[in-house]
């Protein structure tokens, strides 16, 4: 921080002003938003989104007031289908309440609460706080998913809430405290889908988790939309959520750990479907244990086994005839010190030629990932992980002095992610972002995958100063990997520390009492959305994510100081 005794010591031409011995202000150009969060111990306060934040020229953000929340309470019950006798107690469920962001590219608001099980009528089973809605705010979407929907049935043989009641979704506005009353999952009119699971010889399949997937609301995400049936005898019955939006798919996943069997899926069904047989294709074959050697080149040039690599082998059979089940077998493991991935697969002809391999190298490896590489079971050879590319650079300040101990992280840029098909983009996101520290001479080297799924990489390099050092964090955006097959190193131009603009504020509650342990985050809103037209797979309603410019927590007096890059 630049020290001062008077304004004349600061760069007043850009608005800086001296306060408490520090030059504050001189804000960067752009459009900004902020999110202010209370400490976890203040349940009487709630997160505030400031969609349009003006950064003051003198750096004084003044007092930022946290808000009191609206409280949403209610109870969740399962519909009591006749002729059952029900106790009318609440059921356990996970309730997610989310709202779209108030500024473009923001993360919005979301929270999760659990509905308690077994509470008698007359008492609420859940209570949660959310930011109070004001005119023009998007509505909250409340999703209620009964508990006990895991991969395995309840261990004690009891019937879980997810087996009794389907999920629900509803919209609401919270301009005041709300009591939802009793939310009943399912109804007398809920569509029931029954059927059987059979193998290729029409024998009933045992120990499968059966569920329907679709959308709870039009335009919503695809999610589970029915009760769960953990069928032990091959007969299933699931109840669809009311108002489900089709088409739906029925998924059957084996849960017997002693069995190697594919998951089955029948798709394209209408929500009014009442009867459906899910038939496993014939010729899935028998169990086959395979060992896949994973290797790579060491820094010395020798070929060495790769320990700690996460290996996933998947085969997906998609039938030619609509309405019959597709079958997916997916197995995974981690290589041992010998670099071997030991997996148990099926050797049937239905999967011949369909096995594909994915490999995630160990964290911090100089070796890259493999995406959907075909693997023939009959001729398994060593799998060579490709080398990563070294991004080399140096960080200096405005006077050319090297800057050490800055953290440097390479994140796949939005350009990279939106250049991939959805499945490859998800694979790309699973690769942990490499990170390192600059040396005392300011140099750094960080290893990245040059391309994934045939798409050449673009990375954002994020530079962060250690705590207690008054340097703003900044990002070198969209560093493109040159499209050269044998490339091993990319030398980047020196990264010059941007000038830092300092700001100060005080956090307070609505009673004007100062709040310690809260946090202010300032985001830069992208106004140029041309990237949406430059990439092959932008999201629907393409919005460039807002970028976090800086953040700081308030001290015990409620005061906070933060630095933003100019």
């Amino acid at each position, binding site marked *: 921080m630049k020290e001062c005794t008077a304004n004349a010591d600061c760069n007043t031409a850009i608005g800086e002003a001296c306060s408490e011995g520090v030059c504050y202000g001189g804000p960067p150009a752009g459009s900004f938003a902020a999110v202010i969060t209370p400490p976890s111990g203040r349940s009487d306060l709630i997160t505030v989104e400031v969609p349009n934040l003006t950064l003051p020229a003198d750096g004084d953000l003044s007092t930022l007031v946290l808000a009191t929340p609206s409280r949403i309470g209610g109870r969740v019950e399962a519909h009591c289908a006749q002729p059952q006798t029900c106790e009318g107690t609440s059921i356990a469920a996970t309730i*997610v309440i989310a709202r779209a962001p108030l500024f473009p590219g923001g993360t919005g608001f*979301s929270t999760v609460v659990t509905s308690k099980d077994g509470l008698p009528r007359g008492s609420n089973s859940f209570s949660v706080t959310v930011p109070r809605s004001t005119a023009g705010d998007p509505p909250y979407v409340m999703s209620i998913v009964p508990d006990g929907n895991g991969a395995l049935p309840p261990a004690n043989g009891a019937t879980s809430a997810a087996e009794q009641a389907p999920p629900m979704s509803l919209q609401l506005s919270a301009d005041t405290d709300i009591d939802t009353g009793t939310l009943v999952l399912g109804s007398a009119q809920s569509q029931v889908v029954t059927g059987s699971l059979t193998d290729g010889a029409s024998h009933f399949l045992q120990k499968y988790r059966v569920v329907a997937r679709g959308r709870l609301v039009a335009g919503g995400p695809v999610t589970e939309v029915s009760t769960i049936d953990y069928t032990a005898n091959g007969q299933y019955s699931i109840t669809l959520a009311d108002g489900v939006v089709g088409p739906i798919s029925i998924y059957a996943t084996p849960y017997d750990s002693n069995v190697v069997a594919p998951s089955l899926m029948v798709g394209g069904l209408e929500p009014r479907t009442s009867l459906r047989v899910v038939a496993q294709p014939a010729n899935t074959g028998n169990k086959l244990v395979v060992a896949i050697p994973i290797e790579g080149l060491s820094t010395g040039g020798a070929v060495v086994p790769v320990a700690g690599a996460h290996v996933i082998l998947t085969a997906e059979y998609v039938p030619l005839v609509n309405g019959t089940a597709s079958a997916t077998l997916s197995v995974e493991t981690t290589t041992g010190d010998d670099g071997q991935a030991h997996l148990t697969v099926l050797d049937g002809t239905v999967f011949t030629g369909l096995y594909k391999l994915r490999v995630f190298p160990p964290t911090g490896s100089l070796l890259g990932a493999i995406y959907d590489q075909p693997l023939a079971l009959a001729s398994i050879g060593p799998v060579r992980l490709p080398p990563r590319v070294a991004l080399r650079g140096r960080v200096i300040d405005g006077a050319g002095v090297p800057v050490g101990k800055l953290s440097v992280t390479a994140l796949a840029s939005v350009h990279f992610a939106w250049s991939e098909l959805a499945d490859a983009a998800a694979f790309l996101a699973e690769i942990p972002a490499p990170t390192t520290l600059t040396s005392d001479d300011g140099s750094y080297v960080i290893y990245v995958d040059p391309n994934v799924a045939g798409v050449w990489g673009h990375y954002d390099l994020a530079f962060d100063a250690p705590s207690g050092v008054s340097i703003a964090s900044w990002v070198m955006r969209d560093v493109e990997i040159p499209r050269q097959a044998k490339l091993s190193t990319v030398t980047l131009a020196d990264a010059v520390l941007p000038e830092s603009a300092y700001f100060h504020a005080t956090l307070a509650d609505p009673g004007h009492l100062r709040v310690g342990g809260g946090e202010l985050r300032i985001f830069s809103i992208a106004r140029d959305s041309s990237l949406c037209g430059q990439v092959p797979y932008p999201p629907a309603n393409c919005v460039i994510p807002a970028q976090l410019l800086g953040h700081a927590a308030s001290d015990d007096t409620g005061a906070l100081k933060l630095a933003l890059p100019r």
Partner: protein
Amino acid sequence: MRHPMRCDPRRATARGSMTRMSERGAAARRGRLANSAMPLADSPLARPLHHRARVPLVFLSILGTHAMGCIIPPSLSVDVQDAGVDSPPSITSVRSDLQELPEPGPVLFQANPNSSGQSLNLTLLDTDINDTLYAQIYVDYTVQQPTPARSVCTPASATGTATRTSTCPLAGLCLAADVGVDRLMEIVVFDREVLTVGSPTFKAIPAGGQSTTRTYILKCTS
């Protein structure tokens, strides 16, 4: 200022002379020490002993049968440390874009490959002011079925103060298979760089290093 030694630590036995605050690398799995900060495999929600401590607490020694044990309180000073005593790191706060995250949650994150901007910010404390701290986030990790870290946080380098910060990218935290299922999320901070091989798998650090964990119930949405 260091407290004067009241006995010769060289006469203390290796076992039982002092209650350990947290795990020490590969030696952590030998025996079960009463005050281990590393969650036990069968008790994933055990809380770290020195949760939110701003200074190390003075521990009483547990005298073994053959002990020539001494009560040697760790130094409360951050400027001079006994070269033989490594203070463990601690996590003083965990924040997402939306809120501070108190244990055990539940905490909610999206499975979204486009969410490259989302992150967790950790505030860490280690009175070994020259230690660089390394944090990683694991999901549903068990010793029997170890899984690699879903997120590697920025190294928190030593700057001469006990407090450090670290940022954890969250793009790969929630996978599609995690949506709608409860997972166990561990934020583990090590005061040594994590080794690529060793035990426990994906969490091995050099001998003498220590770690601390915060554990949350993780819920992922689509």
